[in-house]
């Protein structure tokens, strides 16, 4: 997937901006994260016979202007879950995952092979968290200001634009560093909050997506 260079990135801050129509989208197929990858027996047993991870695909677009990168994620979800008050409230969420080590496994990394997650959740629609993880259950917040977000739900789809500086100084080692001309890998996950999806109960992309950041 090509992250196109543009000189009008601010015109694409809004997920509904007309300019996104001109940017090619990559459709990423998703599947439920397998029961065998659930970290505890309780979770595996509870969800064994329950449907989850039903979001089948995600449309991804990316642009940059040499300083800032923006991704737009768009997926079907006809029930918006953005509130978190009741004990059973789990907001809708989505994440991008970037390896910080060459062979980091796609499912949350591994010890010594960390991954950087950009995690957006509908109860904080205007920002995304940057997390680092070295295996299932190990994610930790690195920063919650570097990635800004704008989100819209149109009754049928979530559209979320995530923006970050290509390079970040704070927590540099735990954040993916990007530059024009770079090729790297990423993958995605989506949580349907209305189905109480959280943690490893999610739809995820079982393969890396190759990103090419236009020079």
């Amino acid at each position, binding site marked *: 997937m090509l992250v196109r260079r543009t000189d009008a990135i601010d015109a694409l801050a809004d997920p509904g901006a007309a300019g996104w129509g001109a940017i090619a989208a990559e459709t990423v197929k998703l599947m439920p994260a397998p029961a065998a990858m659930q*970290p*505890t027996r309780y979770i595996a*047993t*509870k969800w064994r016979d329950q449907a989850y991870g039903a979001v089948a695909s995600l449309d991804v677009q990316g642009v940059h202007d040499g300083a800032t990168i923006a991704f737009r994620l768009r997926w079907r979800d006809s029930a918006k879950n953005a509130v978190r*008050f009741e004990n059973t409230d789990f907001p809708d969420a989505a994440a991008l995952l970037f390896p910080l080590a060459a062979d980091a496994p796609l499912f949350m990394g591994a010890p010594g092979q960390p991954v950087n997650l950009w995690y957006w959740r509908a109860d904080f629609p205007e920002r995304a968290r940057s997390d680092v993880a070295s295996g299932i259950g190990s994610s930790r917040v690195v920063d919650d200001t570097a990635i800004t977000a704008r989100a819209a739900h149109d009754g049928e789809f979530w559209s979320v634009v995530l923006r970050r500086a290509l390079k970040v100084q704070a927590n540099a080692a735990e954040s993916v560093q990007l530059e024009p001309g770079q090729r790297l890998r990423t993958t995605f996950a989506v949580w349907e909050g209305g189905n*109480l999806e959280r943690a490893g109960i999610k739809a995820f992309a079982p393969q890396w997506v190759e990103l090419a950041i236009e020079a």
Partner: protein
Amino acid sequence: MNARTDVGRMMEGQVVTPKRQLAMVFDLNKCLGCHTCSISCKRQWTREEGMEHQWWAVVNTMPGKGTPKDWEGMGGGWNAEGEPNPSRIPLRDEYGDAWQFNKQEVFHGGKGVETYLAPTNPDGSKPGWGPNWDEDEGGGEYPNSHFFYLPRICNHCTHPACLEACPRGAIYKRDEDGIVLINDKQCKGFRFCMEACPYKRIYYNHVRDISQKCIFCFPRVEKGVAPACARQCPGRLRFVGYLDDENGPIHKLVHQWKVALPLHGEYGTQPNVYYVPPLSPPRVDANGKVDPSKPRIPLDYLESLFGPRVAEVLEVIKAEKEKKARGEASELMDTLIVYKWPEDIFPDFTVDPAEL
């Protein structure tokens, strides 16, 4: 405090146990249902925003639906094969929410005669349940109606279902005293623990997006001070101590006299709060005659809570009580009576917090 330890986890078919285990024994024959325990805990630990509805210590009237409503039928814990029992997250209203009252309207709005003081849930809905919703209702029909009070906290279980359910390893059991704690820096509010705990003693803090529960007053315990609920209890029925301390009341009641029983041991988590089951007056038959052969609180009901040893335990207590009444010595009765407070009830935790 991030180190993930094996204490409390099933490893190769064996639960890893802590070096020592703190426990409580509640003598149900002495509970007044005054809720001083619940209030002292509330004042000490759950006064912050997001904790308004949290009651780490509760006192339920039994028979009754409890806190949260009908928690006994919700599942969780371990089945006979040692597999986790699926359950669900109880709702705020099922625990009993932090009600707001129309005080302004009733007391100052001039509507005192037209309307009445009524609670509202924070989301505007009408409460359907609360922590003491069915207080003093109990069971049975007059003249055999009956009830007793059941104080409940987190049981700091030997094999905690909450701990094993957490995908983040955020719940740990301390090796030095077996206290089960949620590390609030590691917790991400996923709430699998709330599902897995069969006693439903975990609350969700929506402001901090974390799960919270009874901490056995560990900062007090570390300074030799008894947990607030135990120290404030006017009934003096909440014994605290180490299970392996042969001179302490816990060991005496649980292991020596064997009169303190776990609540719903069949849930499989091996709780470390034990209960001395309640005696009750005799039943009265249809003709109004007292039938001393049958207790007012049905035995099968008590067995459904405390297991098959209830009858045996009640016999021991009755026999020792009679001994004492005859002026004979009874170590068991002396232990339960607690002549000297605090040294007889929590011998290792006698420090007065006012003196720290």
